[in-house]
């Protein structure tokens, strides 16, 4: 804070200076607020404005850049700006999905932080009328040897499972990696996919002056107050003291809210509906009013409270979970109330829509908030922060990193499968109910490129995946952003799905530092390139900035959640080797790019070089070929080649099918087998000649590298049994968690 700015505050209202700082509010923002009100704010008004203008709610550092992402397409029904994105899947059905971070709370209190992350994203999806059909997550932890990592893994996993299992939505896919850059700031990104009748989509836009504003769900307590402003600042030595800002979740109540909302949504009583997430009643009421261009008047005495003597400030800023705000059509109150009472939930008419354009709140008969909604939203600050995009490092010469002395391809493979990022995550996903709703066709246990969930009552499959390779993004944010989108697209193609659209979760450090802002800008640029080239628009998203502790930022992590459609769920491909003597092909070109590869990091202890380049034209061509061949029934077995390279992909396929393989190609160098060149798939088919003719006709580069069979992986004169690989792959995480 500059001295002049501090003087300005003190000149206006010395008592507020401390509060302004506590709310991570910039002094200039305070001046705007005073100007808007024409008087000093009340405590509640200060809280409302600070929350609305927090990075978390206002996207003030990122908004100018997020506009660069393509958000439209023929299948997009609703893009960014609502609670979640909506994409048409035909037959009057749509999928609604979004990913959101709960990073800061999960570091402070891992179980509740992760659990309420899941609860929050589920609400975003069912607020719009969809029944949630799947949860996914992307988790980044610090290095395994860091003293906090083990307990954070245990707590986050238990929290995700605790919430998803209870509410009865399957957790079908995810990714978990470890890196020292997350030692002080873990990432917990949760995604929910829901299914909706496309004629029954609900939005938050309020309408109808005089219409009742109704509060439903749980009671309001003092939990999570200032959560949004907390998540808009860095951590320091006193992070543990922030525990009271973390919300406490109750999945049982959310299950009731879900069922009650869907039951009411089957009628036509609702005008608009909005969940109370970050900044609780503040953001939900402001959002509804501003979208409808109306005012809203709330009697805070009518809000169901869990604790006594709560102030207007506390009620407006509480982030108690499992609450919804809705506007009903006049005269429909008792019908709605009956449904919520049946589900034993609170239901209270707390206010009405007005034509004043103002948010007005009363507490104990006293007017505590009276602020114009339009300017509160429009005057929210927008920063064009300075940025520096780092130049990509030079490409690493693969010849400098041969197999270490005494090692073979097989022995290195065994070592790599026993590392934190490549090992089996069974210890994690066995704690998640992956089968409830009885429509899961592929989930984590299949080690699938993408999970596949059947659209209930149909034969259609919804494919979904979450992806990001932070080490690529750290080296070259543009290429990293491009790769994250492309890998997600490729993963959908690999199961046979047509990619539809993405949601993003942008996790970065402090945007006030130009190199960090540069990472963000670069990643957006790369993402935009890929989304455009692949017809893969962004329909929803979330930014989590200030992931720093004592000035140490996380690796840039623009996590991508992709969703695709399979016309026939029975036609999907899996990674599993299905029989002996089948031909193994690699589609796409293998050049042996080892810069930023896991081979380089795990075997040579180097994080170095440019990440592998992504050729979007080739990606598009290869993906289309793969999808068409799967749809035609020509490919049943397919796996995208990503982390760890070709040999790791083959090992995963062999382990899934409990069938080995013999790789006859005479290319013994490590870079060929462990390089992470993009745009590649392993395809296994019974009839080599027939398939070869098809790839040749399509003009796509390929290699026939061997065939399935036996109980070992034989590669260039070295060999390792599947039993040993299974031990290596399955052993790391459970051994680590045992401590």
């Amino acid at each position, binding site marked *: 804070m500059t001295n002049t700015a501090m003087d300005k505050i003190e000149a206006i209202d010395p008592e507020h200076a401390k509060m302004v700082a506590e709310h991570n509010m910039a002094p200039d923002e305070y001046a705007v607020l005073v100007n808007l009100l024409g008087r000093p704010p009340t405590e509640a008004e200060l809280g409302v404005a600070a929350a609305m203008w927090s990075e978390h709610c206002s996207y003030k550092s990122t908004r100018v850049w997020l506009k660069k992402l393509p958000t439209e397409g023929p299948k997009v029904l609703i893009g960014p700006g609502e609670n979640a994105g909506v994409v048409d899947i035909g037959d009057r059905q749509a999928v609604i999905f979004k990913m959101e971070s709960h990073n800061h709370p999960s570091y402070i209190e891992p179980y509740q932080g992760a659990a309420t992350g899941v609860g929050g994203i589920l609400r975003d999806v069912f607020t719009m009328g969809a029944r949630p059909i799947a949860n996914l997550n992307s988790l980044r932890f610090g290095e395994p040897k860091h003293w906090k990592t083990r307990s954070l893994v245990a707590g986050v996993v*238990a929290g995700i*499972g*605790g919430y998803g*299992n*209870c*509410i*009865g939505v399957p957790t079908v896919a995810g990714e978990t990696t470890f890196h020292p850059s997350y030692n002080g700031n873990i990432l917990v990104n949760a995604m929910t996919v829901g299914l909706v009748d496309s004629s029954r989509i609900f939005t938050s836009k309020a309408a109808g002056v005089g219409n009742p504003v109704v509060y439903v769900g749980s009671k309001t307590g003092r939990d999570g107050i200032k959560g949004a402003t907390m998540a808009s600042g860095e951590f320091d030595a006193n992070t543990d003291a922030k525990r009271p800002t973390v919300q406490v979740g*109750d*999945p*049982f*109540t959310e*299950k*009731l809210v879900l069922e009650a909302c869907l039951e009411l949504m089957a009628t036509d009583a609702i005008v608009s509906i909005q969940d109370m997430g970050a900044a609780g009643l503040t953001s939900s009421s402001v959002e509804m009013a501003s979208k409808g261009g109306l005012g809203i008047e709330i009697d805070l005495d009518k809000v169901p409270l869990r604790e006594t003597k709560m102030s207007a400030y506390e009620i407006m800023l509480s982030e108690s979970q499992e609450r919804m705000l809705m506007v009903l059509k006049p005269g429909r109150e008792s019908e709605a109330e009956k449904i919520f009472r049946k*589900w*034993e939930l609170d239901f209270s008419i707390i206010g009405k829509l007005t034509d004043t354009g103002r948010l007005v709140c009363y507490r104990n008969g006293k007017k505590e908030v009276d602020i114009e909604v339009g300017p509160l939203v429009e005057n929210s600050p927008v920063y064009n922060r300075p940025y520096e995009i780092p130049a990509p490092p030079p490409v690493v010469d693969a010849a400098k990193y041969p197999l270490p002395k005494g090692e073979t391809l097989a022995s290195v493979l065994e070592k790599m499968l026993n590392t934190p990022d490549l090992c089996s995550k069974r210890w994690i*996903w*066995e*704690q*998640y*109910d*992956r*089968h*409830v*709703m*009885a*429509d*899961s*066709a592929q989930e984590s*246990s299949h080690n699938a490129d993408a999970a596949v969930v*059947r659209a209930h009552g149909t034969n259609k499959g919804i494919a979904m995946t979450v992806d990001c390779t932070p080490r690529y993004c750290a080296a070259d944010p543009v290429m990293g952003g491009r790769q994250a989108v492309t890998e997600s697209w490729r993963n959908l193609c690999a199961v046979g799905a047509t990619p539809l659209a993405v949601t993003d979760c942008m996790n970065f450090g402090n945007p006030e530092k130009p190199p960090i802002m540069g990472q963000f800008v670069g990643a957006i640029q790369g993402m935009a390139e890929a989304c455009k080239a692949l017809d893969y628009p962004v329909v929803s998203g979330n930014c989590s900035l200030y992931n720093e502790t004592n000035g140490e930022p996380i690796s840039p992590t623009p996590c991508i959640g992709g969703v695709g459609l399979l016309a026939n*769920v*029975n036609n999907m491909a899996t990674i599993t080797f299905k029989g002996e003597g089948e031909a193994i092909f690699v589609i796409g070109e293998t050049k042996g790019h080892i810069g930023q590869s896991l081979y380089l990091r795990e075997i040579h202890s180097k994080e170095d070089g440019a990440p592998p380049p992504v050729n979007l034209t080739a990606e598009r061509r290869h993906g289309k070929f793969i999808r068409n061949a799967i749809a035609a029934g020509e490919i049943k077995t397919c796996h995208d080649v990503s982390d760890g390279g070709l040999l790791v992909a083959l090992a995963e396929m062999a382990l899934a099918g409990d069938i080995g393989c013999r790789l006859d190609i005479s290319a013994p160098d490590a870079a060929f087998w462990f390089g992470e060149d993009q745009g590649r798939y392993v395809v296994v088919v019974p009839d080599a000649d027939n398939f070869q003719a098809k790839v040749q006709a399509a003009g796509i580069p390929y290699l026939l590298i061997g065939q399935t069979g036996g109980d070992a992986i034989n590669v260039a004169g070295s060999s390792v049994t599947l039993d040993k690989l299974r031990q290596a792959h399955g052993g790391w995480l459970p051994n680590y968690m045992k401590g």
Partner: protein
Amino acid sequence: MKAAVVVFPGSNCDRDTAVALEHALGKKPHMIWHADTKLPKLDLIVLPGGFSYGDYLRTGAMAAHSPVMREVVAQAKNGVYVLGICNGFQILCESQLLPGVLLRNESLKFICKPVTMRVESNDNHFLRKYEAGQEITMPIAHGEGNYFAEKETLDHLEGNGQVVLRYRENPNGSAHDIAGIINDKGNVLGLMPHPERAAESLHGSSDGAAMFRSLVEALR
């Protein structure tokens, strides 16, 4: 045959169970709300999986005291067939329609994975479409599936042929590897694995479908 699925607040396998039942039955089962105290005339009542009442107090404990359960207990005593799956099994134990109790898994963690069980006896209406000794696979998904009863009770269950489903590899610490038991009269069965999640090829196993078909055939 008239079948019903009970819906408690927090049930989350009610729909899946109804779908599997409908598949075997050819018509939709009744869905009964936990507050209902008057049940239609039924041949089969299914208590589905989930987290009734949020698993608060103890799994199944609150559901056992819900209005509908008084009626279910009365009907079970009159010979109506009752199947409890997962949380339904826990509720049957807490209602004392079945002996014993389900404790937390030995690992203290929620476990979701396919398990293989041996059908110890098919001499009942629930399992008649299986062979005795047949090995069948269904998923489990529970935090409290660790069956416990005192020695005399276990001896009685074993001696009386009431342990009808036994894990091949014990996933949760259950006494005697018990996956499912039946009551003395043979009209109340509880099991932890989910037959409704192993009911068609999409599920990877359709071994559970025969349980619903057994009931439909027997109670036709």
